[in-house]
């Protein structure tokens, strides 16, 4: 029997199946499943008996073949005169065999190319070490990189200058809370009003330090009941009303 030759040579279950089908001179489009399944199983048994490892893949295909065989035994629903390939339980198997055959053939073609190419020789590279010691150095630079570097520098510089600026301001404007309280008292007099906003108080010098000193001064004055503070809503204008001395005494 054909399947007993070259036992371990098959590249997989499809390879074996194709071999069996071709050996039995069967058409792939009309596989005699019962016959082929019997041969396939006999082959696997032969492998087993010779203690050749039978891969799980071979068993999987055996199971598939048996399933197809059993389906073939069921009465066909389709009209006998019509060849309904989609209804044929063998159709998926046929497709896979054809796909496998296609690439087996492709493998044979590239093997021929390999045979030809093996008759051709390349040569190794010449010794070029003397060139390798002195590489050509060249500068890699592009305008984007150049601009990025410059922008980074400007940004850095700007930050440093800002810090310097703030530092200098604190030195210059080191006004105390006491001084500020006196200023606020005099502000009411100068403005001729008894009610001003926080913004009015810091209008002349809206710097961070002045704003903070003014605010703490106001809190201190409020604590001493020298003023009343009003704010209608979050972050809204803060109104400051001077409390007249006599009212405070009373």
């Amino acid at each position, binding site marked *: 029997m054909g399947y007993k030759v070259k036992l371990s040579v098959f590249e997989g279950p499809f390879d074996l199946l194709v071999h069996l089908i071709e050996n039995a001179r069967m058409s792939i489009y*009309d596989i005699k499943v019962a016959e082929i399944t019997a041969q396939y199983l006999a082959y696997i048994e032969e492998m087993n008996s010779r203690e050749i490892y039978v891969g799980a*893949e071979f068993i999987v295909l055996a199971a598939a073949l048996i399933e197809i065989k059993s389906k*073939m035994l069921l009465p066909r629903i389709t009209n006998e005169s019509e060849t309904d390939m989609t209804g044929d339980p063998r159709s998926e198997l046929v497709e896979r065999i054809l796909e496998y055959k296609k690439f087996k053939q*492709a*493998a044979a073609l*590239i093997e021929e190319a390999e045979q030809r190419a093996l008759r*051709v020789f390349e*040569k190794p590279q*010449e010794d070029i070490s003397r060139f390798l010691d002195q590489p050509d150095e060249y500068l890699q630079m592009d305008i984007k990189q150049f601009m990025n570097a410059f922008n980074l520098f400007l940004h850095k510089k700007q930050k440093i200058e800002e810090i310097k600026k703030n530092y200098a301001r604190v030195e210059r404007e080191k006004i105390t809370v006491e001084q500020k309280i006196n200023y606020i008292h005099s502000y009411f007099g100068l403005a001729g009003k008894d009610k001003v906003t926080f913004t009015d108080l810091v209008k002349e010098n809206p710097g961070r330090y002045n704003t903070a000193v003014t605010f703490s001064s106001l809190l201190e004055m409020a604590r001493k009941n020298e003023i009343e503070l009003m704010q209608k809503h979050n972050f809204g204008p803060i109104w400051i009303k001077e409390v007249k001395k006599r009212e405070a005494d009373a």
Partner: protein
Amino acid sequence: MSSKKTIKAAFEAMMFTLGEPLDVKLAADVLGISNKDACAYFKELQDEYEQEGRGLRVREVNGAFQFVTSSDVYDYIERLCTPSKKKKLSQSALEVLAIIAYKQPVTRGEIEAVRGIKCDRVLEGLENKGLIAEVGRSAGVGRPILYGTTDTFLRHFGFTSIEDLPGIDDIENAVHEQEEDDDSGQVTFNLNESVAQ
């Protein structure tokens, strides 16, 4: 500006020195000519060596050119020295390689589906030989590795580019024709099948 003769001489010497395929772009750069012109000169050289029946040939590999020996004088080289032989690939390696070559980029799962058998070992071997390489990841579940062939593959098989492979359509036709031939002698047996069961 270098003369045509000088350019071709330079290409010869450059190919000889480099051994491996010399990229057209690189060669064009060295000579300060356009890629198109460089390519034309390489093709001219290729024709010259072939027509003069020289012992060397200019082989194209994916847009690069190299000197190789003519296969016509293989026997003499073999007699001269047993050249470090490139090993022939195994049947399973050839099958897997064929699937990758024609279906690339392709996942391991797809290769295994065609062959009906696992092929991780074979893939590993082909990758170690530099014949195939990972070319990306599939968008599918688990993002499996996609394989493709390399320039080493082209050189091993003497293909100029992947387009140089024998057409897969021809193969399909060949398979079908064969089937049709087979069919013609089979009609009578087909009827027997249902009876046999």
